[in-house]
């Protein structure tokens, strides 16, 4: 996997607990382009309380055409509260520090055919949507933003004000945002797509409001990172060669394989880095991919899966099975 070698070129800690980090090539110059809503996966070294190396995904703030810098906004998640320590590490970086990353990957792009975009963000979930807003502003696309954040904790407020002409005044109260959202969901022309990013509970609310207003699934798009966001899923069984074992609900294939003594390479354990990719054999009944790494074509082929997040889907007879070929 080709890593990008970057250095920290700028830090902005103005908003409490939200660090804006600018990364650039060590000698300057152009970085790989990316589509709006893409994320960057940073390598997080072991040490300072981290037992092993990690990889964490962060949404890019920019728009992505011929960039000379990558900018991310990282919310500090408390390792004592169960976070793996990636964001805490980002908050210790200093200007000039080297950082390696995988090139940006797209997972939450604006729908090209859409005639209008309704964006609904909460907290740090504003990051990929600012990237969308920049793109829409550049191409003159119609976009509307509803943004919820705690008073005094809003990230990227200057960009939001600039890109929405100041009309998207943020909400500090969830109930206020929801009542405005209900109104706006009823009044979007055909061709509008909805994008939401924020904590899982928030996005669930947005999705259920949209469904309530008659929005079909194909117009609703959401983005979230993190293992605890994922549905525990149903149990399924796995064969690796002659061995057969079960993966219980709430346990990942990666964890189950580790318990069985297999060493599966991994970094992020949340479906973003690509390290834990496994080849699957034809006895596989179906794959619920859930990763942000494989392309749509890879997923449609159904012959590989990411051990950290993917699970088996049942066949018509109800059996759920993955045949792993190591």
């Amino acid at each position, binding site marked *: 996997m080709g890593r990008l070698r970057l250095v920290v070129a700028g830090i902005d800690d103005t908003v409490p607990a939200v660090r804006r980090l600018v990364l650039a090539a060590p000698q300057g110059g152009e970085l790989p382009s990316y589509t709006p809503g893409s994320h960057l996966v940073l390598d997080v070294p072991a040490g300072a309380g981290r037992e092993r190396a990690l990889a964490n995904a962060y949404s890019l703030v920019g728009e992505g055409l011929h960039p000379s810098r990558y900018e991310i906004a990282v919310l500090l998640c408390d390792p004592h509260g169960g976070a793996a320590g990636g964001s805490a590490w980002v908050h210790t970086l200093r200007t000039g520090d080297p950082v390696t990353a995988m090139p940006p990957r797209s997972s939450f792009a604006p729908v090209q055919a859409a005639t209008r975009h309704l964006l609904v963000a909460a907290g740090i979930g504003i990051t990929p949507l600012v990237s969308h807003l920049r793109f829409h502003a550049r191409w003159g696309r119609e976009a509307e933003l509803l943004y919820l954040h705690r008073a005094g904790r809003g990230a990227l407020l200057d960009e939001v004000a600039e890109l929405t002409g100041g009309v998207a005044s943020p909400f500090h109260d969830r109930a206020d945002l929801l009542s405005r959202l209900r109104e706006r969901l009823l009044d979007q022309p055909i061709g509008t797509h909805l994008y939401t990013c924020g904590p899982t509970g928030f996005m669930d609310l947005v999705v259920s409001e949209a469904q309530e207003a008659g929005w079909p699934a*194909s117009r609703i798009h959401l983005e979230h990172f993190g293992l605890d966001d994922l549905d525990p899923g149903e149990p399924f069984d796995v064969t690796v060669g002659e061995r057969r074992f079960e993966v219980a609900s709430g346990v990942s294939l990666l964890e189950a394989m580790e318990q069985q003594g297999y060493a599966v390479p991994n970094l992020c354990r949340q479906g973003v880095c690509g390290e834990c990719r496994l080849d699957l054999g034809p006895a596989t009944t179906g794959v619920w991919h859930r990763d942000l790494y494989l392309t749509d074509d890879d997923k449609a082929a159904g012959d590989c899966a990411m051990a950290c997040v993917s699970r088996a889907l049942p066949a018509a007879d109800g059996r759920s099975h993955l045949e792993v070929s190591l």
Partner: protein
Amino acid sequence: MTGTATESAPHPPHYTSVPDWSREPLVQPVDPLGRVHTVIEVVDGDRVATRAVVAGWLAALAGAQVRHHTCEDTSAAVAALEDDLVAARVGHRVLVAGSADACLAVRAAGVRAGLADDEMGFGVVSVATRTVWCVHCSAATVAELALDDVVACSGCTRNLLVYPHVSRRTGQHLGFMVDAEEA
């Protein structure tokens, strides 16, 4: 993880541009999640069967906001749909009953107006007739045809193979000369 809210559904193994309901007559159910429903009845084929399909839908939609149009032919149906969609809001659903040929043409108008596949449903009463678009002269030929049949192009008289591909934006089947290689 990311994607549309339907992400948990597995991909169909082989995608094809020819909908099942244009291979054999099928009636899709109403979508009770819709807020407003346009129901289009295209009566240039089997009127009785078409009426029965629409009656079933209207019963299932009792109490919902419904705009029912009875249209004499495909172009009237397309006009009725386009008219309804001008001021329509997301939450709108469209149901079309009639021949597969009419349904494909009306679906194409819906696609051009920005409707998604999960906002349209079809009730097909016959699949005998197909419209074939000639890749050589761009004429459209309408005839009683099965997929993979051969038909003389109404524009250039070339013998066209009715290829199993339907354009989403026109609703027409792709047709090209059978012996193109030897010609």
